[in-house]
C-alpha cells in the first residue's frame, strides 16, 4: 500500500466519519422506544379522532384482549410425554439382512422377468394363431399345397439339410412298433 495513502486513512479514522448526533442520543434511545411502545395505546386513544378515523366496526387490541381463541384436544398435554418418548434411535440394519433383502428382491425380479417373457411369447403365439384362420387352411388345402411331394418340399426349403431333420429308418420302425396303428388310423379319419 502507498505509505502516504495509509497515513491519510489513519488520519481519517482518527478524526471520525464527520457525522454527529445530538448529545446523549444513543444513551436515551432505548428509553424512548420503550416509552413509545408502552404508551402507544394512550397515544392511539388520545389521537383517535385525528390519527385514525375509527369506524363503527373497528376495535382495538384492548377490546380483543390476549385470548387468541386456539384450543387443543382434551387431555392433549397429559399425553404428550408418551408421544415424545425420547429420541428415536436409528435402527441398525445388519449387512446380512440387507444382503438377504437384495437377494430376495433379485430372485423376485428374475421370476417376474421369466414369466413376463413367457407371457410375451404366448402373446405372440396367440397373435399367430389369430392370423391363421380356418378358411386360410381351407384355401391352402384347396390349392393342393398339402399334396406336395418330397421333391417339391426340397425345392421350397432348399436351405435346409433334409438329412438332419429326417428320421432314420430304424427310428421310424421303432416309432411304428411303439404305437397302436389302428388307433392312429381312427384318429386321423
Amino acid at each position: 500500500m502507498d505509505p502516504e495513502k495509509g497515513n491519510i486513512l489513519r488520519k481519517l479514522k482518527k478524526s471520525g466519519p464527520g457525522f454527529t448526533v445530538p448529545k446523549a442520543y444513543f444513551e436515551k434511545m432505548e428509553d424512548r422506544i420503550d416509552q413509545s411502545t408502552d404508551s402507544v395505546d394512550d397515544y392511539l386513544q388520545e389521537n383517535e379522532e385525528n390519527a385514525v378515523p375509527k369506524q363503527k366496526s373497528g376495535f382495538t387490541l384492548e377490546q380483543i384482549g390476549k385470548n387468541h381463541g386456539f384450543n387443543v384436544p382434551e387431555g392433549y398435554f397429559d399425553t404428550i410425554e408418551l408421544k415424545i418418548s425420547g429420541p428415536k434411535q436409528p435402527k441398525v440394519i445388519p449387512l446380512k439382512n440387507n444382503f438377504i433383502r437384495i437377494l430376495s428382491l433379485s430372485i423376485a425380479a428374475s421370476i417376474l422377468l421369466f414369466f413376463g417373457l413367457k407371457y410375451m411369447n404366448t402373446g405372440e403365439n396367440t397373435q399367430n394363431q389369430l392370423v391363421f384362420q380356418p378358411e386360410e387352411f381351407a384355401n391352402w388345402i384347396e390349392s393342393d399345397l398339402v399334396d406336395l411331394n418330397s421333391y417339391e418340399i426340397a425345392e421350397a426349403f432348399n436351405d435346409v439339410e433334409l438329412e438332419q431333420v429326417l428320421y432314420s429308418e430304424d427310428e421310424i420302425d421303432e416309432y411304428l412298433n411303439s404305437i397302436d396303428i389302428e388307433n392312429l388310423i381312427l384318429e386321423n379319419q
Partner: protein
Amino acid sequence: MLDEEVLIGQLKDPSTRDASYRTLVSTHKERLYWHIRKMVLNHEDTDDILQNTFIKVFKHIDGFKGDSKLYSWMYRIATNESINFLNKKANQMNIDLQTLQEQSVENLKADVYFDGDEIQLKLQQAIVSLPHKQQLVFNMRYFDELKYEEMSDILDTSVGALKASYHHARKKIEAILVNQ
C-alpha cells in the same frame, strides 16, 4: 422447578438422560406448544413440530454450550422448525409464505380447535399481514409476554431493534383493526 444447570447435567448423563428428558418435556411443553401454534395456527402441524423440536433438543443436548438459557435455546429450535415447516409447506403447495398464512387463517373458520370469534379471527388476519419477523416479535411480546431480553436471546436481535419492531407491528395491527 429443577435448577437449569442440574437438568442440563442430567440430560448429558446417559444414566439420567431418559428421566430428565421427561422433566424437560413436562416443564416446557405448553410454552413451546403455544409459541409454535401461533406461528403455524393448526393443531396437528403444531403437534408434529413440537415433537420434532423435543427430538432435536435431545439429539443436540450434548452440543449445548450454555451460552444462553436452555429454554431460549429450545425456543430458537422451535422457531426454526416452525419456519422451515412453513417454507416447506409453501413450496409443496407451490405458493408463497404469505399466501400460505392467509389460507391458514381462512382455515381457522372451520377448525374445531379454534373457538375465537370474528374479532379474534381478524386479529390473526392482521398478524399474518405483517413481515414474518414482526409476526414473531408481536406474538412473543403480546401473547407470551416475554421480556425483551429473553426475546433478544431467542431471536438473536438487539433489545432496541425488538422494541422498535414490536412498536411498528402493534401500530400496524391497531390501524388494520380500527379500519375494519
